């Protein structure tokens, strides 16, 4: 798994390198847009972490050049705090995800994981029923069963559970859950997602059934099949 990090700030670059290497990724670094673009075009990366403001060549220019050249490598854009419209611009230019500085490293790691995985799931056949252990979700009839018992969920709870089941085994962060279910791009900053998760848990893990949702401390949640 090779990741290219294009970031001009030395401190941030070093921390990114350290954190990603600890997770077992191989890292290439570039501290300006020009070198970054060259590496991105030449190398074979699973993911590119791209800073929005770069010397020599602006991040968005790097991105659009890359896409025009036919490179479909997932790109995660890092940006200093900017208005929502900036985010729209970045995603429109072909970015796959967008993180606003200062970001939590754990959040970045979760999103990198999800982006790399997503790249791999394109070949999978599209299914209308999701299964995790004895939990079954029918996407067509919008019904959820735990074993023989049907669980009645509110629309947002259904979406929440669906996202978790689709990313079965992967850690998902609170803000990813929020963006996936509500489709607004910001961090609600409170424990509101935890409250939603607690409610969902009660419904899915009733009567002391095997827990399927686990909390990953400091990061988020994960759906686990215990066999």
């Amino acid at each position, binding site marked *: 798994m090779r990741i290219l990090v294009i970031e001009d700030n030395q401190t941030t670059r070093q921390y990114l390198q350290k954190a990603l290497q600890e997770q077992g990724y191989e890292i290439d670094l570039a501290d300006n847009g020009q070198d970054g673009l060259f590496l991105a075009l030449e190398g074979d990366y699973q993911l590119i972490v791209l800073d929005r403001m770069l010397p020599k060549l602006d991040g968005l220019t790097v991105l659009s050049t890359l896409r025009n050249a036919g490179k479909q490598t997932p790109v995660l854009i890092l940006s200093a705090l900017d208005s929502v419209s900036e985010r729209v611009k970045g995603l429109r230019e072909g970015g796959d995800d967008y993180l606003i500085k200062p970001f939590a490293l754990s959040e970045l790691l979760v999103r990198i994981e999800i982006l790399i995985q997503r790249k791999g799931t394109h070949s999978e056949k599209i299914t209308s029923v999701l299964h995790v252990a004895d939990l079954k979700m029918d996407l067509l009839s919008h019904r959820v069963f735990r074993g023989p018992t049907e669980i009645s969920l509110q629309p947002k709870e259904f979406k929440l559970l669906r996202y978790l089941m689709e990313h079965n085994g992967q850690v998902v962060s609170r803000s990813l859950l929020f963006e996936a279910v509500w489709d607004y791009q910001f961090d609600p900053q409170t424990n509101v997602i935890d409250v939603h998760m*607690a409610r969902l848990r009660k419904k899915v893990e009733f009567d002391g059934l095997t827990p399927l949702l686990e909390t990953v401390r*400091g990061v988020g949640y994960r759906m686990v099949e215990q066999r």
Partner: protein
Amino acid sequence: MVLPPYLKQYVASVTEWWSSVKTAHSVWRLTRLYTGLLLSVVSILLIVLYQLSIGQMNRQQGLQIANIIAQQTLLAEQLSTEQFLEQFELQAQSSRQYILSYQTKKELIGRLSEIPTTLSQCPSLSRFPIWLDQFDELRLVSGCSQSMASGALIIAVDDESLYELKGQFISASAVALLLAVLLGIITGLVFSMRVLKRINSFNQVALQVESGQLSARVAISEQNDEYDHMALHINTMLSQLQHSFETISGITDAIAHDLRTPMSHLRQQIESEILSKRQLNLPTEQLQPMLDKLDEILFTFSAMLELTRLQQQKESNSQYFKTVNLKQIIVDAVDLIEPIAEEKQQVVNIASAEPLSIQGDATLLFRAIYNLLENASKYAGKSAQISVQLTHRGFTVSDNGPGISDIEKQKVFQRLYRIEKSRSVAGFGLGLTLVKAIIQLHNGKIELLDNKPGLIVNVEFVD
């Protein structure tokens, strides 16, 4: 009674005009003042004119009568009664202008055939009708009687023409005064409306500045009069205000901006430390609270910077506006807050009119609405009723909690302001400021009203 619609409209428009005029106290005051002045001037003019014309004639007449009385008194003293009566007879016959009679105990000599019943004592005059041969008609004359040694002297003068003149003068004066009133009201209204329109433009600007539009300026006309001078001064003052305000917020923003970088590096350091320790299964309990504190600070800085951007760069923020469905956003926000409210036994309901779509940024609007709901849930207390209502021009968020006092209603939109009793609750006093900035970015107005009990936040979008 059913009124035809055009009449209803007419009545409505007249009523509206009337109420607008009535509320404009100064218009009336100035008009009254102006009309009063005009009336006084016209009245003085009329009085002077009267004194100079008719008054003069009246005095002349009085003098003449007094002269005749004096002359006859003198004659009566110098002549015997016989002689006096004789000369009087002659005088009475020859006098054209004055009708003279003399009443002794025995007879009435002179031109009057009889003495009128009501006759005042000279010098005051009373009017009575007599038949005059020369005109061959009944005429009203003014006269009086003066008692003398041997009888009473009656003098009358035919002042019909003078009397008519008087009447004409009075009716002419009445018309003149009426015209003066009309003229006064019309010109006064026009004049004061024009003046007040300019003053109102000042008020409008003041209101805009109050609501946070520091860029509002008073329009300056070509007349280069006192108002323009005042407008110039006010505009200069506003420019300076705006400049210092921007400088101040610039300074705080610069501080926030410059501190964010070292802080985020600090954050990265602590976090990578935590991650490393976790890899080795070492405890991280001591580091986690630091991270949370740092996150709070960074969040406040970010919110401050974001606020400034929302308040200042309207164009770059609104160029990505799309048509958004406000009702969907409200439903989403209520879905998000709902479990939190449930923990406090609060009920959140949506009362909706027809769906409303506006041009805007869905994420920003969601944040504003969610923030209002969060506030309601935070401060309305246990088992509160919270309701979001779509109106045809926006929405309201209301609760039945303790509400906010009128003094604080003005202040809660200020940066970093926190109500005394809410200091125990987590927050930085930026939420409502951000909400207001978002609403204003969408050409909306936000106001706080009493729900008695509780608070109503009313948001209206203007197209």
